[in-house]
């Protein structure tokens, strides 16, 4: 192990921060993949894999991914909700891996809602 310089310390911090940020529950964007029985049956797990792949490839550090159960709209699965900090959550429906890629480019990185895939902006409040 080579001796650290001050810049190395900052580099290690930035690399390792992605994981600890997730543990702090802090992030600019939160993606919720709906993985109820219906979501899984409709291919939700592949959507989850695609989301994780995008995160990896784009090296996004401020995006949290979590899962939820059935959103009550089984016919439109697979679904995911994208929530940019300070904005209303957006539900995307009838997803494919290709659509996930586009949503990442436009909404999560670009900041414009990919309206053609969005079901509705806003959602009912849980709890």
């Amino acid at each position: 192990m080579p001796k650290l310089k001050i810049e190395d310390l900052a580099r290690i911090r930035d690399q390792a921060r992605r994981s600890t940020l997730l543990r702090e529950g802090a992030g600019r964007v939160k993606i919720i993949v709906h993985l109820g029985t219906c979501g899984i049956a409709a291919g939700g797990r592949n959507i989850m894999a695609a989301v994780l792949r995008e995160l990896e490839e784009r090296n996004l550090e401020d995006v949290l991914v979590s899962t939820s159960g059935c959103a009550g709209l089984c016919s439109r699965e697979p679904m995911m909700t994208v929530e940019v900090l300070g904005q209303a959550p957006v539900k995307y429906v009838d997803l494919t891996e290709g659509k996930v890629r586009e949503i990442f480019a436009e909404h999560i990185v670009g900041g414009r809602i990919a309206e053609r895939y969005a079901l509705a902006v806003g959602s009912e409040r849980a709890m």
Partner: protein
Amino acid sequence: MPYRVHCMVCAGTGCVSNRSLDVREALEREIRKRGLQEEIQVVTTGCNGFCAVGPLMVVQPDGIFYQQLTPKDIPYLVEEHFIKGRPAQKLMYTPPEAPSPIPRMSDIPFFKHQRLIALRNRGLIDPEKIEDYIARDGYQALVKALTRMTPEQIIEEITRSGLRGRGGAGFPTGVKWRKVREASGEPKYIICNGDEGDPGAFMDRSIFESDPHSVIEGMLIGARAIGARHGVVYIRNEYPLALERIQIAIQQAREYGLLGENILDSGLDFDISVTRGAGAFVCGEETALIASVEGRLGDPRARPPYPSEYGLWGKPTCINNVETWANVPPIIMHGADWYSQIGTERSKGTKVFSLVGKVRNTGLVEVPMGITLRELIYDIGGGIPGDKKFKAVQTGGPSGGCIPAGMMDQPIEYVAPDGKREARDYLDLPIDYESLTDVGSMMGSGGLVVMDEDTCMVDVARYFLAFTQDESCGACTPCREGTKLMLDILNRIVEGHGTMDDLRALEEIGWVVKQTSLCGLGKTAPNPVLTTIKYFRDEYVAHIEAHKCPARVCRELNTYRIDPVICVERGHGCGVCRRECPEKAIFGEKNQPHRIDPALCKKCGVCVDVCHFNAVIVE
């Protein structure tokens, strides 16, 4: 690929003894079985604090808190939470009076009122990975101290922050650092006091276990400030996990060049060695500790000279407590102004307490100085279990005292920060170094034992005195002989042979031991006795004059009898007590009232435990 979920499994000493490592193993197995190992990471952390409900795990990023886990729960948990995406309610925590479980850790009252500075990384990092510490801005305070601050400025910052020693006495840390810096003699040494021998205390152990690098970074900053090249971490041999984690951390810091020569190219040379303590309480006292590090018998010596002038190997030595060191990096990082706005007028920052005894939520808490006992015991601690009445709280461990609940009609005078005086119920007294001393107790290292109506205060005093008496090193007469005399008297009183003269003698000897002992052990050992006599004199008198223990704890003083009505009507004279009594002191026939022969009864209490109908009455 990044993980989407982190399972933070507690592997603090409490959870490990409840088999949290088996839970972790089951979790890892199940995750592999379900093919989720690319998505879900299992992280082992130090003590989360809420030991009462361990083994526990927090699932991030959502902060879902699972408790009292067993390996059997894991398949269900994985299926529900990670496959179906709905957190498993039945494994969550439900407070006693609450209608439903609380999913998120941050919403649980035990955590809500805490403020984490010394324990800032607890539950968030793997203590065996230096990268995890670095990710949370670890060693950035060191960078600041090395590149942008002179030693003078560091000391000034620590002084202005108001940080005081967390090892018991509360001495201002910046003042101590300056003394050592200005003392003549080279080399200078730094010591981290991790002896922590008070029964029931586990604050320092937990810092080592959950965040060892915070201590190392604090010591590095201290080394730059006072000009030391060598540091010693003193830690009990009985704390194997803490020992292992600090050793791993030191090794990693060395590999990264954060310990050793020319650290971060700054010209600072500093390294740390570990000394294992043999586990005597008196070895926590600074002069005894230094003797023990030097390989001599761990006996205290008279001060002055203080270690700041004449310490390890006769050189100027800065000795601070574990928690004190862990507070240093955040102060340097965020500044004295930030730190000093937390707390009270004379006690700044936070304090870690181990909350134990008759309180629902036992565990480790870090709270701002100035929090009230009421908030600690009721809001965080969840109050007293059962329908029992709150009786007293003991602070400061064997050196501290008991503060009674029944001071409602004798409010104590509280001097507000602005100098205004007001009368307050002591439960609403802001806790800090001074206020605890004012009521005859002390902060000590942060042990907090809650007692209810079933606690006998004479017995408590005897328990602590038996501890200090046993731990007295014997070097000075008042402590050696005085504590022995006091313990003899207390033993007589709990056995029902005490006299009122004994009680007077107890107080007198107590004051002599306090005033004439050589070291802090003897100077404080009488505190539990003196405060209980002061606040619970009635109980002592009841033991002496009525031969009764009001809390029915002191076995010798109890008498046992069987309520004939309950025995027949509810128990139908079942006779369990008669069969189980080791002294054959119980007589009776089936369906008839049973009776205890007081001449034969040896007061063992077995009959009380075995009677299903609560027919045996203790008086």
